[in-house]
């Protein structure tokens, strides 16, 4: 399977360096660096979405219109309902203080109807319909809202961003593959004479391809590892120094699975480049007799 990698030294000399090294390792390094960062962002977003989703899955609010005069009674009803793990009241005044950050003094206007809230977490088996009915007997218009419904647009945005990140990874990989195709064709043109001589003497396409495949695989490996290492350094700096990122994502970080995926990416890029080079060279050779 890896015979192509172990071609002899004299055979390797057939593709001697042409003075300056081709830009392939640099192009692959840049691609690898970018792919790693984009992939890390996508994985972090996925992790954030997962953490957020888990956190709000069982979280509900009882909205109490009209300022919540009977808030203590309602809190008692919620806490006594079966399946409620915890409940916490947010008074109208607290709500107005929170809204003031965005609305300014207008948040204190009595013309702005601000409900009180009772946030609560439920365990499986909770009867939310019964709880809502009991609450409405105290405050008509009270209603239970699932947090996941409120946060659904945000989760959809996070999912969309993950798709974009994945798409970018695919696009960048395709761009890297295209760069490899160009590099392979350039190398074929550079060594056209040697290839013609080899063919004339009886070399098979596979023998010629093995030489190019090995050369491009090494270039791709060097580039991928260099780009991946640079990206890893950047990610370490971000992870170590920017605590606001953790705050922003509710403590979401890259898990072991994510790190394994990121570690494998440069190798996957090398494998892709090697396969693309092999295919491109074989295809190009078929155009000759």
């Amino acid at each position, binding site marked *: 399977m890896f015979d192509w990698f172990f071609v*002899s030294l*004299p*055979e390797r*000399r*057939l593709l*001697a360096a042409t003075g300056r090294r081709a830009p392939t390792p640099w192009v692959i390094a840049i691609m690898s660096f970018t792919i790693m960062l984009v992939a890390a962002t996508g994985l972090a977003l996925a992790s954030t979405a997962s953490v957020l989703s888990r956190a709000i899955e069982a979280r509900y609010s009882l909205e109490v219109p009209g300022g919540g005069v009977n808030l203590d009674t309602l809190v008692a009803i919620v806490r006594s309902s079966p399946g409620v793990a915890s409940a916490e009241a947010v008074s109208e005044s607290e709500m107005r203080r929170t809204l003031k950050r965005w609305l300014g003094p207008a948040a204190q206007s009595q013309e702005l109807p601000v409900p009180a809230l009772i946030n609560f977490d439920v365990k499986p088996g909770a009867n939310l319909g019964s709880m809502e009915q009991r609450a409405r007997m105290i405050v008509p218009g009270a209603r239970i809202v699932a947090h996941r419904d409120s946060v659904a647009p945000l989760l959809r945005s996070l999912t969309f961003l993950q798709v974009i990140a994945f798409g970018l990874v695919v696009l960048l990989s395709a761009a890297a593959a295209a760069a490899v195709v160009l590099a392979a064709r350039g190398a074929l043109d550079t060594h056209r*004479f*040697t290839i*013609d*001589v*080899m*063919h*004339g*003497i*009886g*070399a*098979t*396409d596979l*023998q010629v391809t093995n030489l190019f495949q090995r050369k491009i695989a090494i270039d791709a490996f060097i580039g991928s590892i260099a780009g991946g290492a640079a990206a890893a350094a950047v990610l370490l700096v971000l992870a170590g120094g920017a605590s606001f990122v953790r705050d922003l994502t509710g403590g979401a970080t890259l898990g072991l699975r994510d790190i394994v995926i990121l570690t494998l990416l440069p190798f996957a890029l090398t494998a892709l480049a090697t396969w693309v080079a092999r295919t491109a060279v074989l295809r190009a050779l*078929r155009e*000759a*007799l």
Partner: protein
Amino acid sequence: MRKGWQGTGQPCVEFDWAGGELVAAVAEFDSVGLRYGTGAEVLRDLDFRLRFGTFYFLTGPSGAGKTSLLKLLYLAQRPTRGRIRLFGEELSEAPREALPPYRRRIGVVFQDFRLIKHMSAFDNVALPLRIAGASDADVEGPVREMLAWVGLADRASARPPTLSGGEQQRVAIARAVINRPELLVADEPTGNVDAEMANRLMGLFTAMNRLGTTVVVATHDMGLIKSTPGAHQIRLENGTLVDPTGSLKNAHRPARPSA
């Protein structure tokens, strides 16, 4: 006509009965024509057979199509019409992946030498053996011996650009004959060497011919032809074949030139 077998166990040549004797053909051209692109035909209606173990000189004025004919012989070009059989196999329309094993049975001395410039003389000569899968240990001895034979033992590590024209030609010849081809094709092989070296190289060709190699040498040098007794002459004029010695149609057992 029936197929013959060489000692390697591979079908290699075609035999037929003619004139009461068994004659083997290493190459057969049947109504072969060749044109490049949409231009006029450079070779027309070539019908001949090269007999196994025979020495041929290919002559003709410049532009007659000698190099094109040689290209067809060493499978660097496909005919645009007609059929070519080499070593008993129809190869004019063979898939390209089928050609390398046949090319390995042909040694070629190119007019422009076609040496790989960044490789040493040793590596250039060793190339056919390495392509055929020989190990480094199997390559060392024969290549040193061949370089010594062409008088370049002390230039083994030299690269072609540092060699004179004659030295490059000798390296090219050494590369063509290193794996003892069954068919040796040479395009003006003595064009850049002095008379003494030319005689020596022709001696090598005739020695290989005595061992059974069919040799085809394109040349303008009539002295060379005269100094190779028993060799046949194929003459090309305006892309068509002239056969002054009748050697292509005459089906007697091939004569061997003397050393």
